[in-house]
C-alpha cells in the first residue's frame, strides 16, 4: 500500500516539474500533496496529514490558480502593411473590442504592431493571437493549443461577426 502511494508521489512530483503548462503543474502539485498526506496517514501521523491535505491540497492550489489567472498576459500581434499604420477608426474599434474581451477574461492585453509576415511571427515570437488586415477584411489567427479559443470564438461571433477566426495548427 505504502509503496504504491510513494510511487504515485514521485510520479506526481516529476510530472509537476516536467509539464509544459503551468496550470497542469499546479494540479500535479495538488495531487502530490494528497499523496503525501496519505503517506503521513500510513505513518500514523493524522495531525500532519490533516494539515498537509488542507494547506497543500486546497489553499495553495486555489491560490496558485488565482495567481496564474491574474498575471496572464494576452499578446495581440497586429499586423499592418506598409503605409497603413492601423490608426484609422475601424482598426481602433476592433482593437478596443479585443481589449474588452481581455478585460472580461481577466487577461492583460498587450498589443504589438508589426509588419512581419505571419509565418515569421509564428516562428519567432510568443503570441496569443495575430490580427491581420487585408482589404478591409480582418482575420484573427489563434493557435490550436490556446485555452481561450472557444471563448474568443463566442465573443467574436457576438460582437464582430465580420471577423474570421482561423486556427493555426502545429
Amino acid at each position, binding site marked *: 500500500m505504502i509503496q504504491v502511494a510513494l510511487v504515485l508521489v514521485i510520479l506526481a512530483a516529476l510530472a509537476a516539474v516536467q509539464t509544459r503548462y503551468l496550470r497542469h503543474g499546479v494540479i500535479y502539485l495538488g495531487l502530490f500533496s494528497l499523496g503525501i498526506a496519505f503517506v503521513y496517514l500510513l505513518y500514523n501521523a*493524522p495531525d500532519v496529514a490533516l494539515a498537509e491535505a488542507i*494547506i497543500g491540497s486546497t*489553499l495553495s492550489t*486555489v491560490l496558485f490558480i*488565482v495567481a496564474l489567472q491574474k498575471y496572464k498576459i494576452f499578446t495581440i500581434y497586429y499586423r499592418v502593411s506598409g503605409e497603413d499604420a492601423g490608426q484609422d477608426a475601424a482598426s481602433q474599434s476592433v482593437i478596443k473590442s479585443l481589449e474588452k474581451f481581455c478585460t*472580461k477574461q481577466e487577461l492583460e492585453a498587450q498589443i504589438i504592431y508589426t509588419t512581419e509576415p505571419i509565418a515569421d511571427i509564428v516562428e519567432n515570437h510568443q503570441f496569443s493571437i495575430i490580427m491581420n488586415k487585408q482589404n478591409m477584411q480582418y482575420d484573427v489567427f489563434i493557435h490550436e493549443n490556446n485555452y481561450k479559443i472557444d471563448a474568443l470564438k463566442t465573443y467574436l461571433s457576438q460582437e464582430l461577426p465580420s471577423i474570421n477566426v482561423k486556427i493555426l495548427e502545429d
Partner: protein
Amino acid sequence: MSDHSQLLSRSIGIIYPIILIFGLYVIFNGHVTPGGGFQGGAIIGAIMIAKYLADPIPFLSLEWTQSVEKATLLILYVLAALFCIVTTLQIVVGHFTIFLILSNTLIGLKVACGMSIIINRFVYYETR
C-alpha cells in the same frame, strides 16, 4: 472569475455550513481526536476560498479581521501567563481540559483570521 456559474455557487452555498461545522468539530475535539487549533483554523480559512469561488465579492473587512487576530494573540499570551501563575501557586489543581479547549479555540480563531486575511488580500487587492 467574471462569469461564475450558477451551479457552482448553489452547491458551494449548500456545502459551506458543513465545512464550518467540520472546522469547529476539529477545533473543539482537538484534545481527543487528531487535529487541533491550527488544522481547524485552516479549514475555516478554506471557507473564504469557497466563498470566492461562489461569488467574488469581499465581505470581511480587513480592519476588523486584523483587530480580532491581534486581540486573540494578546489573549493567548495573557492566558499563558495566567496558567503559569495558577499552576505554580496551585490555586486550581486539575481542569486541564478547559485550558486545552480554550487554547485550541484561541489558536483556531487566530489561524482562521490569518488565513482569511492572506486569501482576501491576495485575491481581491493584488492587482498587478
